[in-house]
């Protein structure tokens, strides 16, 4: 899932300060799971900002709402009136949600309330860790199901670097060396032979280096005729 963190409250308050009517919009998907932008976080932020406004004597109307998935236009459309009725929208979703609202209502101001961090997983309650960088060319079937691109500080493809010692990474001694983890995993899978096979230089053209990526599934796309029938723009 996408893991995000709330921006510092003073930064959010500063962004919103010039505006009279603010709508804070959360998302019930990834950012709710990582406790950054779900219903509860939206309510707490709205309340905290109201306390701040009270302290500074600022007259500002702040309302909060939550949509199922802010990155999908259909869900955002349901609260269109609320968005357009405000001077500014603070998106408590990942950047995808904020940009979806921005694309749908380009004249309307939409600010980010979260810093979008990574593709990660919940390790334990309150802890999320990065497991994927979305490189566009997955190789984890050869590395015991562990991604060296995301988990190795140098994204090494063929074994650990010289800085790996006692199973730890030289960049951060708290972090396990990805290749130590890969070795262990391949060992329990009886596939240690893979550790000696050479992974060819990665084709990064599928990653972000080629600019914005767009995936298309032709069979899922609507024809102009279907779009007309469904009233889709």
């Amino acid at each position: 899932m996408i893991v995000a963190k709330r921006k510092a409250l003073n930064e959010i308050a500063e962004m919103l300060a010039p505006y009279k009517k603010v709508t804070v919009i959360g998302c019930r998907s990834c950012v709710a799971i990582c406790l950054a932008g779900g219903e509860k976080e939206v309510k707490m932020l709205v309340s905290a900002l109201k306390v701040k406004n009270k302290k500074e004597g600022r007259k500002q109307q702040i309302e909060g709402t939550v949509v199922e998935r802010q990155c999908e236009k259909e869900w955002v459309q349901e609260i269109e009136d609320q968005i357009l009725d405000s001077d500014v929208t603070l998106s408590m979703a990942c950047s995808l949600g904020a940009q979806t609202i921005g694309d749908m209502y380009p004249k309307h101001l939409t600010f980010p309330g979260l810093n979008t961090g990574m593709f990660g997983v919940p390790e334990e309650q309150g802890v999320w860790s990065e497991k994927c960088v979305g490189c566009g060319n997955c190789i984890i079937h050869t590395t015991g199901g562990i991604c060296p691109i995301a988990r190795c500080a140098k994204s090494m493809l063929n074994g650990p670097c010289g800085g790996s010692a006692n199973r730890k990474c030289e960049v951060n001694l708290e972090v396990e060396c990805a290749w130590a983890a890969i070795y262990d995993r391949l060992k329990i899978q009886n596939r240690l032979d893979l550790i000696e096979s050479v992974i060819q230089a990665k084709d990064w053209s599928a990653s972000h280096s080629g600019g914005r990526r767009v995936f298309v599934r032709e069979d899922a796309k609507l024809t102009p005729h279907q779009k007309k029938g469904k009233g889709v723009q």
Partner: protein
Amino acid sequence: MPQTKPKVIGFCCERHGMDAVVLAARSGKQLDASVRLLQVPCTGRVDGLHILKALEDGADAVFVLGCLEKNCYYDTGSIEGRKRVGYVKQMLAELGIEKERVEMFNAASSNSWIFPEIVAKMVDVARKLGPIGGEKR
């Protein structure tokens, strides 16, 4: 400007926290009437939003009173309460609002002296800091 009483809200667990309050009352301790207590099943039930709402709706200071951490009726409820109070204090600090307005306290059922001390401390904080965004009392 007319002097008004400070407004202090206390979220108090119905177990050891409330026992300590009742014991203090039965001991004949004089308590400041500025404090309004809300009894909750456990301080683990107190959410950060409850505390913020209290401040938003006019409280000058808010406290949470639960069981002693190693003797909590629900085992870890008062630990949860402390974590939530800590989170709200951090939010207030980020916004430049005095984090002293919010505090967590713990009591055993037999601690009759604790509640009057808490009340005195929080009323003092409320008096010193005054209403949020208003004049000091």
